[in-house]
């Protein structure tokens, strides 16, 4: 039986369903989405808004998409940062398989010096069915 959709499979290396984030101490989340296929279609959203979509990234379509959440220091060029609009919010990366067959999502929690605190997610999502989509979520509570 598929893990999601009609043919989807999920390979989990690391998975946290939720995380506490000390934004006041400079902690932030770094997202990295690696794609295999013809053209990635995905969005990054919270419960209030869609924050980012694939075509907003420079160089789209490409293999690696990176962005951050709640980063307070300037990041590298081409890596957008999104700020939180709620102390307790759920963020999802919704991946569509219309023209891609595999996504690898890595989410890292980092400190103000960009040092890794912990990896929150490192998961592969694969599907051969172009109708399939999958929203992977992470609950983020600011403390």
């Amino acid at each position, binding site marked *: *039986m*598929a*893990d*999601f*959709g*009609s*043919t989807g499979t*999920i390979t*989990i290396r690391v*998975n*946290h*369903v*939720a995380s*506490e984030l000390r934004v006041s101490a400079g902690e932030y989340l770094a997202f990295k989405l690696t*794609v*295999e*296929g*013809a*053209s*990635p*279609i*995905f*969005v*990054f*959203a*919270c*419960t209030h808004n*869609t924050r980012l*979509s694939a*075509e907003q990234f420079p*160089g789209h*379509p*490409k*293999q690696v998409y990176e962005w951050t959440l709640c980063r307070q220091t300037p990041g590298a060029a081409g890596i957008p940062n999104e700020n939180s609009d709620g102390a*307790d*919010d*759920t*963020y*999802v990366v*919704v991946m*569509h398989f*219309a*023209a*891609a*067959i*595999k996504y690898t999502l890595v989410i890292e929690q980092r400190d103000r010096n960009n040092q890794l605190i912990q990896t929150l997610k490192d*998961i*592969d999502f*694969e599907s*051969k*069915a*172009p*109708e399939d*989509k*999958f*929203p*992977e*979520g992470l*609950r983020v*509570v600011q403390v």
Partner: protein
Amino acid sequence: MFRTRLVTLFLIAALAGVFAATVNAQSIADPLKSCEARTKDFSAWADCVTDKVVNAATLQANQRHPAKQVELPSIAENTTSLVDQTSAPDLAGLALDLAGLKSKTGANDNGASGTITTSAYALYAAAAQHDPLDPAFYQSHPNLRRFSFSIGHDAGDTSSATKGPATILGFKALLLNGREVAKNKAKLAAISAALGPAGPVFARIQQDLTNYLFQKFAAALGSCHKSTPAGGIVQFANNCLDGDALTTTIAMLTPIQRQEIAEIVAKEAIPQTPATSSLVKLNQTTADVIGRIRRAPQLSFTFESKLRNGTGDDEYRTGLLFDYGVWDRFNVSLNGTFDYKDSKIIGGDTRAGRFAAEGIFQLTPNKSSFGDPRPWLLSTSAEAKWANNNKSTYTGQLKLTIPIPGLTGVNFPISVSLANSSDLIKEKVVRGRFGFTVDITKLLSKTP
């Protein structure tokens, strides 16, 4: 004795029927129950619950892509293909036809035949040592996917001096490629646009479901036997909604609680009417776009050859192939070719015009009741051949293609042919064949 066995069989059948009816009734009354099997992670369970509530009819509307040929080309002796398809797999495909099923004994055909097909794109990616599934690389070279090459072996008829084992060589060039992803950016943009409004809905559903489970089970479950002590919702989510603990937690839900969950999801997913739901719109847009791309016309030029050593005949086929999705589950393929047989016997050459047509019906939806997401395909085809030796032949074929459950990319085609001429089919009237097709692209993409 016979009566006892009959009664036993009847009881087994009756019990099976009652069990099936019970399961079916349960799944209708409590559709979220089946999501207990989708607990690879919390998002997977929430997605399953969401899908059940939204009840998208998306999958039914889609037509599987039957036009990427991984079977032996029609020129091969032991093939299950009467009609060739316009396109080949993007990277590589392998076809093996194992045996011809004889309608009488004494025939001499022959053992395994096989071809491997690859595209110029795959060869270029290998030469450039670049990942062929890098989206930027993929989109940069759409024209390389127009060209594909086949090489293989045809076991032939070992009893015939002129139709023995042969080497198969061939290539195809897509002249019109309406299904190329890189050329359907505008259509795919519609899916991306529909995904935008759906994002926050998915997020709210996951947030609401986490809150619900926390409220119902946090006090009773504690830390779910994890080292992190129970506390707020973050600790509960990581302790009780992940791994084996997630399966246990979800299994605790009562039918009433699952109904409450369905209502929570419906409130977010379908706030007013289904027509205004962003999730329904996403599914509708996806079905429409994928269907239109799958049904787009394709026209290709083909050249196939079957080359034999010694006194064996060399055979060539060249011409045009056309595919078009007439409607959701019905694809039509047309072949118009010129066939040439180069005989080593003086005066034995044959030249023939050939026209073949095939209709492919998708028998089952993309997710069949047999548990495999790939559909069963039934194809009917006909071939007419007019040769310079006045031996015109007419052949009909019925073929069933069955996906092998659990083996991605592996299919089992069975075909039955009927012809007017015993020259074409040695068994005079009917020939059955079966084999395997393997789409290597799909197999490779399963590797980590």
